[in-house]
C-alpha cells in the first residue's frame, strides 16, 4: 500500500452522483492506496460562503476541520470544493489563529482527485479503457484557483480507446455558480446554451469534467436539447475498464 487517503465526498456527489464517489475510490485503490470514508463528513460550507452567510459557512467549515483533523490525505472529486477548503477557509478564519493554523496545514493535505493522482500518487496511466469520443470542460475554480488545466487531459490521453476532442470555449463558464443558477436562472440558462453549442460542435459523445456541479448544469440543459449527449466525471472515465 502506498498510503492511506480519506475521501471527501462532496454533498452533491453523496446525494446525487454517488457513483462518482465509488469510481474515485476504485481508481485510488487500483493504483495502490488504502481508501477510507469518514461518515461524519457533510459539506465544505461553500453554498453559504458564496451566498454571503459567512457565520453559517464557518460553522460547517469548522465541522470539516474536526472530521479531517488527523487525515493524511484528503481527496476530493471537485475542484470547486477543494478550492473552497484550500483558498477560502483562510478568509473565514482570519480572526481565529488556532483554526487558521489547522487551515494552513490542510493546504498540503487536501487534493483535488486528478491532482492527487498526478502529483502525489505519481500515476498518469491508471489502466482505464473507455471507448468514447469526449470533450473536456474546464471548471472555473479548478482552472483559475487551482491552476488545473493540463492534468485531467494528460490522464484522459492515457485512457485506451478514448478520443479527446477540444471544444472552442473549454474555459468558458457553464453558468452554474451555485445559487447564481437560481437567482439568475435566465442568465445561467443562457450561459449553459452557449457552452452546449460549443460542445455539440465537437461531435463528441459526451463531456468530461472534474466537477459534478458543472456537469449537473451542463447535463440538465443538454437533456432538453440533445438528450443523447452524456456527461461523465473524470473518475467514472478512469474507473472504467
Amino acid at each position: 500500500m502506498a498510503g492511506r487517503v480519506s475521501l471527501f465526498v462532496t454533498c452533491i456527489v453523496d446525494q446525487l452522483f454517488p457513483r462518482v464517489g465509488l469510481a474515485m475510490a476504485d481508481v485510488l485503490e487500483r493504483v495502490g492506496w488504502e481508501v477510507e470514508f469518514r461518515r461524519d463528513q457533510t459539506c465544505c460550507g461553500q453554498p453559504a460562503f458564496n451566498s454571503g452567510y459567512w457565520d453559517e459557512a464557518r460553522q460547517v467549515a469548522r465541522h470539516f476541520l474536526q472530521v479531517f483533523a488527523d487525515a493524511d490525505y484528503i481527496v476530493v472529486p471537485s475542484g470547486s470544493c477543494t478550492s473552497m477548503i484550500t483558498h477560502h477557509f483562510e478568509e473565514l478564519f482570519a480572526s481565529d489563529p488556532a483554526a487558521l493554523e489547522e487551515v494552513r496545514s490542510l493546504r498540503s493535505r487536501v487534493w483535488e482527485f486528478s491532482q492527487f493522482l498526478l502529483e502525489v500518487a505519481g500515476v498518469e496511466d491508471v489502466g482505464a479503457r473507455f471507448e468514447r469520443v469526449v470533450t473536456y470542460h474546464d471548471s472555473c475554480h479548478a482552472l483559475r484557483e487551482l491552476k488545473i488545466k493540463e492534468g485531467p487531459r494528460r490522464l484522459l490521453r492515457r485512457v485506451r480507446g478514448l478520443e479527446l476532442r477540444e471544444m472552442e470555449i473549454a474555459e468558458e463558464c457553464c453558468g452554474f455558480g451555485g445559487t447564481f443558477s437560481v437567482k439568475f436562472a435566465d442568465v445561467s440558462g443562457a450561459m449553459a446554451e452557449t457552452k452546449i453549442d460549443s460542445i455539440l460542435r465537437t461531435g463528441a459523445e459526451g463531456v468530461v469534467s472534474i466537477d459534478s456541479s458543472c456537469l449537473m448544469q451542463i447535463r440538465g440543459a443538454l437533456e432538453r436539447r440533445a438528450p443523447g449527449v452524456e456527461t461523465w466525471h473524470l473518475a467514472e472515465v478512469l474507473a472504467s475498464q
Partner: protein
Amino acid sequence: MRPIPVESLRATLSNQPLEEAIYASTRRLMEKRAASIPEHLREDFQKWREQAHRIKRHTLENLDYYLELLEDRLRARGGKLVYARDGAEVARFITEVAKERGVRLVVKSKSMTTEEIHLNEWLEREGIETVETDLGEYIIQLAGERPSHIVAPALHKTRYQIADLFHEKLRVEREEEPEKQTLIARRVLREKFLSAGLGVTGANFVVAESGSIAIIENEGNARLCSSLPPIHIAVAGIEKLVPRARDLAVFFKLLGRSGTGQPLTVYTSLLTGPRREGEIDGPEEFYLVLLDSGRTKVLAEPRRRESLYCIRCGACLNHCPVYRKIGGHNYPWVYSGPIGAIITPQFHGMEKDWWLPFASSLCGACGEVCPVKIDIPRILLDLRAEAVREKIRSGEARLERLAFRLWAWVMTHPKVYEAAGLFNLALRDDESGWKDTVPGVFHAGPLKEWLRFRKLPAPPAKTFRDLWAARRQKEALEE
C-alpha cells in the same frame, strides 16, 4: 432593498441581434488581447501586472501626499488644480469658466468620469452645446443612450442601426459601410473642433511629480480637444494618480494590450499645463478637475480599496460570461461588467444595487485578466457578505437566513444530515433519469427556477454513504 431587474435581463436575453452583437464584439476583443500577449511576453506581462498593482497601492496609501505634490507641480507649470466633491461641482466649475469666456460650444473626448456625473446634461441645461467627439460616444450621444462598454461605448449597436441613426439625425444619405460612416462623423465633428471654445477630456493617469496628465486614445479626438480650443479642462477621479512619469511605461504597456490588444494605442499624450512661451498652439489655459464623488468612501475600506486601482481597460467586461449575455445596459451605472458590479454598490450604497455582486457565477475570469490585479472575485464575495449583513439589519432576509441557519445545523449534525437526505426529499421517486418536473409542493423557489431551463438528475435510490457501507460489508463477508 430593490428586487433583481429580472424583466429587463429577460428582454436582453431574448433580443437575438443584441445578444449576437455583444457576444461577437467581446469575443473579438478577447482574441485581440490574447494575440497581443504572445508566449514570449507572458512572463513579462505578469511582472507588469504585479508592478502596476504595487504602484497603485503605494499611491493610494499615500494619496494625500501625492495630491499635494501634484497641486504644487501643476501650479509651477501654469495649470490649476480644482477639487470637486460631486458632479454638480464639476459642472459648476466648467460652466463658470465657459460663461466667463463666452464659450458656447464645448468639444469632449471620451471620459468615463464625465459619463459618471452626466456632465453633458449639466452643460446643455446651461445652454452650452456639448459634443462628444469619440466616434462611439458620438453615436451614443446622437441616439440619446448611455455607453454599454467602458472602451467600446457603442458595442451594442450594429452598423445598420448606425446607418438609420445618421440618416435621421444628420440628414445624410443612408450609409451602411463603417468606413463611410466614419467619414461622415469626421466631417461633422471637424467643424465642431475648429469652432469650439473649450475642450474637455478625461485623464487616464495623472502624474504627481510632473503635474502631467496622460491620455490614451486611437482616434485623435482627445488630441484635438486638448490642442485646438483655447481652454482645456481635464476631469479625473482622485484615484488616477501615479507618482512619477516613468511609472507610466508599465501602465501604457498593460492598458493597450488589455483593452484593445494593442501594444500601444495610436496616441499616447502626456500633457503638462498650458502652452509654453513661444509655442504656437495648444491651450492658453489648463485646469485639472479632480473628483471625489464616493472615492474617499471606497478608499476608507482597506479590504476593498483595490477597487480604485482600475485603469478602465474593459478586459473584465470582455471576459465576463455574464456581461457577455446581459450587456452593459442592464447594469445600473455607467460602469458595467465585473468592475461595475464591485464599484457600483460601493459608490452608491447597497440599498439599490445589492444584487450586482450576486450577478456572477464567480468564474474568476475577470480577476485573471485584470491588468492591475484587482481581486474582483474576492471583492464580489466580500460585498455579498456585506449585502447579507445589510439585509439582516433591515429585517429583509429572515426566511433566507433561517434557511441557511437550518442548513448549517444539518451540516454540522451528520446523523441529521443522513436522515434528511437533503436533495432527495423533494426529488426521489422510483423513476431514474433526468426529470423536468417535481411534485407540486416542491415546484417552487429554487427548484422551479432551475427547471425553467434545465432538467434535474433524479436522485439515486442510495446515497454514497449507503453504497459505501454496503461495499465495505460485502468486502468483509468475502474475506
